């Protein structure tokens, strides 16, 4: 079994790292005492007024420590969100602004939970020393067993190890065995200690139901205004296209027909020429309307749903596109159209910017989330900085709580993932 040593080494490395983190946590526990005392002191003397000066600085320090612990908790597989309320924007740089800042700090329940955590952590955090202590003790036992007991016993001060008096070789071996037991304990316990601590962190430093709702409301109002902006821009674009395109063409068509009407009696040849012109303007108007319709809601999407629409996109692209779709039933229209336009834009990017040859589009549904992945073998280096097409896609997906994940190292390949929560309706039955 080749994998055993690897698994064992992984476990060893894990335990070693956990020990280090544990020591850091315990150090944090000592820091907690200091921070708790000072912060509480200054909060109390806020009543007098002098505390206001130090409060924001102290809060920064407290939150920094709390964030470190949240990170440590996440490392042990317990992700903890930051619960703080958003900082007030545009704070004046004077006493009024300072007061507002303090008000924001004092009004946030998370501040008080942080304080409570600091108090409890000054005790609980010391548990972080447990892995290090175990390791130290195991090390001591092994050193004794390796012969360190001899000088100590000769000096007349035989060392105790657990319940063994290490005064002879057999006793030293027994101590060594015990040390191995302790070492195993260290290997197994370290992650557990940290995990337990992570739950303690989550309990006090995670968002409460209330602050979760506050965060959600903030996110929703941001994405809502984004969605409204996008929608307004779309409507403006449609209005402009109709106004300058089809509408103008129909006017000129009417004019041409009027001219035909006048010419019919006297110059049938000219009338015929004008009629041909009128026909070609109507073809042009139709073409523009068709493009506009496609931009609003692609007909193939309305007719066939997302799976086939994505396949059609693949067919229409000059690139070699493989489309693998596993989507039973229809999704809500807005979700389908968001994904369609996103994939359409990604294919265009792959063609225009990445200079790709092959693209793979995969879409599937897991639980209530729609996943799509677009991979191309182009030159990579795609970025979603402000104003880019990718940023546009990200904003549009955000209004559905969707996320866009870009992985595009220079030299490629580019892998872009979309995730959108969706409620799938039952598969439509065709009436035939």
């Amino acid at each position: 079994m080749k994998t055993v040593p690897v698994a064992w080494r992984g476990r060893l490395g894990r335990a070693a790292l956990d020990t280090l983190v544990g020591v850091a946590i315990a150090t944090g526990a000592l820091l907690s005492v200091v921070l708790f005392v000072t912060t509480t002191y200054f909060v109390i003397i806020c009543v007098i007024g002098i505390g206001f000066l130090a409060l924001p600085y102290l809060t920064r320090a407290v939150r920094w420590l709390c964030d470190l612990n949240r990170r440590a908790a996440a490392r042990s597989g317990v992700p903890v969100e930051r619960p703080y309320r958003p900082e007030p924007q545009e704070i004046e740089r004077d006493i009024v602004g300072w007061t507002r800042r303090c008000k924001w700090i004092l009004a946030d329940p998370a501040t008080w939970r942080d304080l409570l955590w600091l108090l409890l952590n000054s005790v609980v955090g010391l548990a972080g020393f447990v892995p290090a202590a175990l390791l130290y003790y195991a090390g001591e036992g092994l050193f004794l067993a390796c012969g360190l007991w001899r000088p100590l016993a000769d000096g007349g001060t035989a060392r105790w190890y657990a319940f063994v008096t290490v005064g002879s070789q057999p006793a030293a071996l027994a101590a060594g065995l015990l040390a191995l037991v302790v070492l195993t304990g260290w290997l197994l316990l370290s992650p557990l200690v940290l995990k337990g601590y992570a739950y303690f962190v989550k309990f006090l430093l995670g968002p409460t139901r209330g602050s979760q709702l506050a965060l959600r409301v903030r996110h929703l109002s941001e994405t809502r205004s984004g969605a409204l902006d996008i929608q307004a821009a779309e409507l403006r674009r449609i209005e402009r296209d109709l106004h300058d395109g089809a509408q103008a063409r129909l006017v000129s068509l009417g004019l041409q027909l009027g001219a035909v009407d006048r010419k019919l009696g006297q110059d049938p040849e000219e009338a015929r020429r004008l009629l041909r012109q009128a026909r070609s303007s109507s073809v042009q108007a139709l073409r523009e309307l068709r493009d506009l319709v496609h931009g609003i809601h692609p007909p193939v999407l309305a007719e066939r749903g997302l799976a086939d629409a994505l396949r059609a996109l693949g067919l229409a692209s000059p690139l070699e596109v493989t489309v693998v779709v596993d989507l039973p039933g229809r999704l809500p229209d807005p979700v389908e159209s968001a994904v369609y336009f996103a994939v359409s834009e990604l294919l265009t990017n792959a063609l225009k910017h990445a200079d790709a040859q092959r693209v793979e589009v995969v879409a599937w549904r897991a639980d209530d989330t729609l996943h799509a992945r677009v991979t191309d073998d182009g030159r990579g280096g795609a970025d979603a900085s402000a104003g880019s097409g990718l940023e546009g896609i990200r904003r549009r997906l955000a209004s559905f709580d969707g996320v866009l994940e870009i992985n595009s190292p220079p030299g490629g390949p580019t892998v872009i993932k979309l995730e959108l929560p969706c409620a799938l309706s039952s598969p439509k039955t065709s009436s035939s």
Partner: protein
Amino acid sequence: MRVVLAEDLFLLRQGIIQLLEAYGFEVAAAVDNGTDLAAAIADHRPDVAIVDVRLPPTFTTEGLQAALRARRERPGLPILVLSQHVEQMYARELLADGTGGIGYLLKDSVLDDEQFIDAVRRVAAGGTAMDPAVVAQLMTSHSRDEPLAALTAREREVLELMAEGCSNTAIAQRLTITEGAAAKHISNIFTKLMLPPSSDSNRRVLAVLAYLNA
């Protein structure tokens, strides 16, 4: 020649009926939904069915599905599909059985009555009529392929017209070249694309479409 027509927009339906009758076709039935279309094809056994892709009651690809079903029941039934937009996927589904007698045109094509009527006749005779927009899409999706890239600009033009379903004569007319020159271009194209040579123009069109659909 007897026609069954399925189109849900009243004005367009009347317009197409007038157009067909002006050119001496007999419109056996004109319906406005997919369910009636199937019945009309079964009852009247037309020489050609002219069908709008999107029909009530579902407003999805009802027309296309009904036409394909009818064709399965009566293999080789000539079908001319009209649509507001062209979609390669639909073209592929129509051409899947590879027996011809298929047309797929944008609705604008009815604006040019001579070309439209020509397309109806061609499809009814078992030929093909593909909209230039479909062909252009097929060509772009293969634009990077080796063999296609080897064609000269003139040969590409000829290939596009051939894919639309034009005969040698029609290609010669459209490009204002002699029929002999058109035939020469075509044989060059077939050599370059490694397609089996064939004198039957319909078989040739189908070969080209099959190649582009690959």
